[in-house]
């Protein structure tokens, strides 16, 4: 070796490329990322319609929906029916949601409440919403109260179930903490139970909102003289596929919009959470 010459032979640096290991989490979310899926679907539909693969009698092209929609807006029918439908869904969701939260807290926080309420709810849960409509008609008639009641019942269950199970899942260690800190019952409720239940409630609200729209479609096509469902039913009788399509698109937008609104609320209210999704 060259040791005698006093030369220092530097070992060649081991140039290992830093291994780019893809992270297991999904990464940083984009702001409008959720629009990608619906966008792709729209593109697919447009291509099928433009190339003639999709018969307009089966499903009209997307632009037909837009022109038909514009026409309906000009006539004033779309806004009027939309307002009626939205008011129905909102009142049903509000009534069902309030009842769900109230009963979930009653049955989650008291033993007796749990025995009475939860048992009944679990029993009723097995009955599909469509099956109770005949009874609702019998009890409430075919007017507005029946429609709102059906929507409320549909929205009730997911909200109740998620809120109740989140309440039951509150860590016993936090209850011990509350006891050692001498929290009052109200402070315990406000500082520990409500914030601990909020993620479950919001999840339930997402499901509940979807259920409310679903029930809305059913009751409006059943018997109504106004609303989007009525507009669609009427169009079906005259084979106006374009108007039917507008109704479908409106339902989709409403559902998507509601879901986005609840998710926005989740992000605002649950900033303390650190999860895979965000």
């Amino acid at each position, binding site marked *: 070796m060259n040791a005698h010459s006093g030369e220092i032979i530097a070992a060649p640096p081991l140039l290992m490329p830093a291994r780019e290991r893809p992270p297991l989490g999904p990464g940083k979310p984009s702001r409008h990322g959720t629009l990608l899926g619906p966008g792709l679907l729209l593109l697919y539909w447009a291509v099928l319609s433009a190339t003639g693969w999709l018969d307009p009698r089966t499903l009209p092209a997307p632009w037909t929906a837009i022109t038909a929609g514009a026409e309906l807006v000009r006539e004033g029918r779309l806004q009027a029916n939309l307002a009626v439908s939205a008011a129905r869904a909102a009142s049903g969701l509000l009534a069902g949601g309030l009842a769900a939260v109230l009963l979930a807290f009653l049955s989650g926080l008291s033993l007796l409440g749990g025995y009475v309420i939860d048992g009944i709810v679990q029993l009723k849960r097995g009955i599909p919403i469509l099956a109770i409509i005949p009874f609702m008609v019998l009890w409430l008639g075919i007017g507005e109260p029946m429609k709102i009641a059906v929507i409320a019942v549909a929205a009730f269950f997911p909200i109740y179930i998620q809120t109740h199970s989140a309440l039951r899942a509150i860590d016993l260690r936090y209850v011990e903490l509350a006891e*050692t800190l001498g929290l009052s019952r109200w402070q315990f409720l406000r500082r520990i139970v409500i914030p601990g239940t909020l993620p479950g409630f919001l999840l339930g609200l997402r499901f509940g909102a979807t259920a409310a729209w679903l029930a809305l479609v059913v009751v409006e096509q059943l018997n109504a003289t106004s609303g989007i469902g009525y507009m669609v039913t009427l169009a079906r009788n005259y084979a106006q596929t374009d108007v039917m399509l507008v109704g479908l698109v409106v339902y989709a937008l409403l559902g998507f919009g509601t879901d986005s609104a609840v998710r926005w609320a989740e992000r605002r209210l649950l900033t303390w959470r650190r999860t895979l999704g965000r």
Partner: protein
Amino acid sequence: MSAPAVRIRDLRRTFTLKGVLNGVDLDIAQGEFVALLGRSGSGKSTLLRALAGIDHEAEGTGEIALPPRIAVIFQDARLLPWMRVLDNVTLGLPAAAHARALRALEEVGLAGRERSWPHELSGGEQQRVALARALVREPDLLLADEPFGALDALTRIQMHDLVRRLSERHRPAILLVTHDIDEAIALADRIVMLDDGRIASDLRVEGAQQGLRNSLLARLGVG
């Protein structure tokens, strides 16, 4: 001598998950730092939970006299994840405690972290928040259930220093449950050893610590 801060007579607990108590007598003087040593299942957690008033599942008899203000530190920091650090410290206290809470956070070396979320803190920092939450209540008695058990060795030593300084400044009576003999010797004025639900020995910590250490190890059956 003034009345003891804590007075326990013939305390018995049966049907517990964590070990029974077979008649415990213990006095803790005001400002005294007592370490409670014992093997797992010896009843040390049962005793602490009885004093903290969170042993609803246990049945038993006995007499416990405690000072009015008690604070508890658990093995986990037990911070509420949905509350910022400052709100965790003042939890359950009136708004007037705000300034005191800031001071307590400063004392545990977390000044400027009031607005952090618990998940943004390290394990040692979280446990320091729990310490501040106890301090701000100005307790006459501080109960600590293996509060450093989940921390790494270096953080534990820092916490020991901090606890020693704070106990000297605030002088609450302290009952520290631990299974770490060195921790007991480093911190306590007095070491009480529990075995099979009874007090097996009650020793004062003074000068000759190596002898004490060996004798404690022997009693734990490790020496």
